[in-house]
Each structure stands twice: as C-alpha cells, then as structure tokens.
C-alpha cells in the first residue's frame, strides 16, 4: 500500500478529482471565444446602461455627449485656425478640424476607458465569474453607441458651416471606417487593460501617449506640414488613426474615393490589434480582479 508518509493525524483520503475543476485556471482559448459570444447580452446591456448613466450626475445629462466634442472642436479652432493660422492650404479647414477632433476623441476615450476597464469594474469582476474581455467589448460598444449622435452632429456641422459640402454616396464610407476604428480601439484596449491591471502606473502615461498620437494623426494640421521631414511623414502614414481621418475627410469633404492603401493599412492594424490583443488579454484571464 503506497500510503505517503504524512504527519500525525492525517488520514489518507482518496478523492475523485475528475469531476472537479481547479480553481483559478483559465479556459482554453476557443472555449473563451465561445463564452464571449454567450455573454453578448451582458455586453450590450452593460454598454447601454453606461451610456445612459454616464452623464447622469450632470444637469445637462446626455447632451454632454455632443457638447463635449463641439467645445473641443471650438477650442482647437481658436488655437489652430485663428491664433496660429495653420489652415494655410487646406480646403474647408473647419470641416477638416471637426472631423479630426471628433473622430480622434472617440479613439482616445475608447482606449483610455478600455485600459481602465478592469480597474473601474473591479467589484463586478470580483463578484461574478464571466469572461473579462466582455468588459472591453462593452466599453467599445458603448463608445460606438455614443458616437452615433456625435457623428450626426459632426455631419450636420459640416453641412451648416461655410463652405457647405454636398452629400454624396461617399458619405456612407464613414460607417466601415468607424467600425474598423472601433476594432482597432478594442485591440489596443485589450492589450492596455492587461498591462494596467498589473502595473497601474501605466494608466498615468496613457494620456500623454494619446496626446503624441494626436499630433501624429494630423488632427488639426495637414500632413504637408511635415514636408521637410519625409521620415516623419512616412511614420504618420502607417498610423491607423491618421488613415481613419484621411478616409473620412476625403469622402465627406473632398468627394474623393479613399485610396485602397488607406483601407489596407487601417484594416491590417485593426485585425492585427484585435488578434494580438485577444490572445494577450486571455493569457492573464485568471488574474483579473485579484487582490494585490
């Protein structure tokens, strides 16, 4: 009889462990993806609830969803259009600026909220056992839902402010561009959420990186500003957010069909970020919500 040597008072106990699961072990990757699909109602409910409650403590409530980017655009217009006069050579600078500010702000919010998704939902994470990546999905769907009034405002402003643009079928290209942008935001959010859940300090750095990214996306000046520096220009051109802005500006403001290169760069970044982000996030699935 192979009774292991043990201390006094220990009774060898034969237990059938096959029906049990080890606590704190993450599921297989494919099971995880299936679970994400099973939790789709949770994702949508959470997203809707937080769109409604996001500004519930403000007197103006959901109007801030629109007021925020409008005020932001106005600030940038004062600085870059009136004070610094960067609009030289840009046709319809106001439209250019509005698209830049509105769309960039969406990414910036999605990514920084996504990075904090675990921290800001810590109690829900600790109380319930669900695939944690649903929180990131929910953040991005929330931003997508909140973007609908923002995009409509953006298009209305472009129609109202001089010089007025005409509505063409190219305007519909805004939809696939936004979807790819959302997928990119999700992927980056997944990566950052894991990093921030381990090293909270990174959350402090994100806003600075986003600001650099804003200048590197040509939100409020044309890429021709960098004509003397071809390397910088090339770097900006592989930036997916720059490509989102370019696609929307070309189709909405200049009635041009966006180049396939723009779509290819944006698409590659979006799908690449999602694939890398999903695997990277899943690898630490069991650690989210732990007390440090």
């Amino acid at each position: 009889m192979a009774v292991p040597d043990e201390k006094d008072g220990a009774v060898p106990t034969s237990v059938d462990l096959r029906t049990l699961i080890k606590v704190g072990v993450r599921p297989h990757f494919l099971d995880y993806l299936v679970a994400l699909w099973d939790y789709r109602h949770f994702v949508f409910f959470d997203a809707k609830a937080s769109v409604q409650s996001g500004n519930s403590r403000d007197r103006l409530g959901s109007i801030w969803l629109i007021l925020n980017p409008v005020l932001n655009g106005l600030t940038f217009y004062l600085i870059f259009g009136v004070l610094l006069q960067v609009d030289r050579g840009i046709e319809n600078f106001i439209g250019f600026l509005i698209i830049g500010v509105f769309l960039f702000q969406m990414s910036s919010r999605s990514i920084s909220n996504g990075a904090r998704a675990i921290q800001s939902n810590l109690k829900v994470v600790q109380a319930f056992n669900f695939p944690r990546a649903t929180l990131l999905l929910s953040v991005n769907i929330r931003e997508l839902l909140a973007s609908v009034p923002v995009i409509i405002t953006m298009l209305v402003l472009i129609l109202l402010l001089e010089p007025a643009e005409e509505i063409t079928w190219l305007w519909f290209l805004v939809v696939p561009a936004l979807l790819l942008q959302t997928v990119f935001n999700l992927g980056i959010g997944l990566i950052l959420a894991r990093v921030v859940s381990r090293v909270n300090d990174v959350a402090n750095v994100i806003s600075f990186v986003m600001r650099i990214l804003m200048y590197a996306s040509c939100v409020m000046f044309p890429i021709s500003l960098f004509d003397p520096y071809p390397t910088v220009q090339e770097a900006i051109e592989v930036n997916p957010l720059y490509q989102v802005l370019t696609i929307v500006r070309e189709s909405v403001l200049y009635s041009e069909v966006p180049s396939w290169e723009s779509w290819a760069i944006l698409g590659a970044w979006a799908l690449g970020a999602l694939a890398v982000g999903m695997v990277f996030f899943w690898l630490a699935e069991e650690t989210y919500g732990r007390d440090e």
Partner: protein
Amino acid sequence: MTNKIEFLSEPPAVVVNNVSMAYRVPTSDNAASTGLLRSIRRAIGNRPMVDVHALQNISLVVGRGESVGIIGRNGSGKSTLMKLINGRVPPTSGAIYASSRPTLLGVSAALVPDISGEQNIILGCLAMGMSKKDISTKYQGIVELSGLENSIHLPMRTYSSGMASRLQFAIATAVDPEILLIDEALNTGDDQFKGRTKQRMDELLGKAGCVFLVSHSVGTIKEMCTRVVWLDEGELVMDGPADDVIKWYTTFIKHLTSRDRVAAMKTKRRVMNDLVVPHLMARETGRRSTE
C-alpha cells in the same frame, strides 16, 4: 496512526489540498530594509515589504449539502481562505478544486452605483450567464428576497449598506450557485432578512450545493451551519460538528477574555492534538473500471 484509507465515493464539492498563503505587504517598520534602498523607497513613498503567513497547510474536503462555518479571531485567515476558494487570490502553495467556480459574497456591494437596483439585477444575472428568459422568470423572486420593492427603481448609490448587501445576496443566489461563500455579508441585514437568508441557504443545500459562512457571531454560525472549521493564526485548529467546535472555541475565547493566555493556548493545543486532516490522494483514472 492508522493505515485506513478514507474512500470518498461521492465526488466532493470543494477540496482544499495543503494550501498555504503568504502575503507580501508593506510595513512601516523601517528596520526591515536598510541603506540606499531604504532612502529611495522612502522618497517615492514605497515602504519595505515583509511576508505575512496568512494560512499554513490547510486541507479540507467538503461534500455536497454541507454548510461550513468558519470561526476564529481577527487575523486568523478566515477571509483569506474565502478568497482562495473563490480564486480571487492564488495560493502560495497547494491547490483548490471545486465542482464549479464558487461565488463569494463580501461586505462591499459588488454592484454599479450609478444605475438602478432593477438594472443591477439584470446586469448581475447576465454576468452570471443567465438568459433573458431566465431573468424575466426569476426577477420577481429576486426583488422579493431582497425586500426592496419600494426602492428598486432608484440608483444603487442611494441604498444603505444593508440594502445593497441584501440585493447582492438575492442576485448571487438567483442562479442556485453550487458553492456559495459568505464573508460577513449577512451581518448588515436585519432579522427579517436573516430569516429569508436561512431559508434560501437551506434551499441551496437541498439542491446539493454547499455553503461556507464566515462570521464573528457564534450565534449565526450555530444557526446556519452543521460543520465548523476553527482557524487560529493561519492554522487549522479544529474541524468537526458545529456544537463540538463551538464549545471548544467558546472555552478558548473565555480564557482569552479573562486574560488567561496560558489556559487558552492549552485548550488550543489540546484540540489541535486530536485534529485529523485529510491527506489527499487523487484517484487514478483507471480505478473506476475496477470498482
């Protein structure tokens, strides 16, 4: 020392196998580090770290239908044990097995303050993987168990802590969790709620679930539990029928309150001498065919 092997034919609900837990925590005791490192740490506000042994070599096998109370003084490792079984904290050594992921109910409400109680119920149920149809059939029952019919449409942030923990209990038990861990969460409820809680827990136990209950109130434990585990300073002192353990624990505490440390430790040592812990042997895969 017997050579007898305890053979569990029924699969248990929770198995805690030789688990130890040490935390690394900051200390304000500056003797723990010296020299240059200490000055840097002090400058950035980090404090030196020390290991705290919260639990040492704990083994438990808990079957279906058992309600286990955990008692012990402050800092004896009760909450740590709950967090380990829940999987919120990974053990330093050893492993924990469970028939499904245990649900932990803590003191702080795990709900979203800015949305209403109603929305929190739906969100919580969805987070536990319930379908929309299940939720609409169980919704009324959840509201009744929480006793919040009048304030269910108000934002959660307006609830008192007792109301919040009642709602949380009602949500968490809506899925009939197989394993429920309750860490002092019932203390904030009033007597009426305690009655409903007991009833709901009995229902869960009837459905082959198991409940772990941490409480400082020996009365609550006596009322709710059939088996009691006594922890002291991270060690398992006693594990047995509720009445026996509570009797010895009360004696121990009585000695401590009368500042008779020697008698208290004597009691503890005496009980620990009789302690019998399971030494886990995982059954081989092939064994079942020869049964």
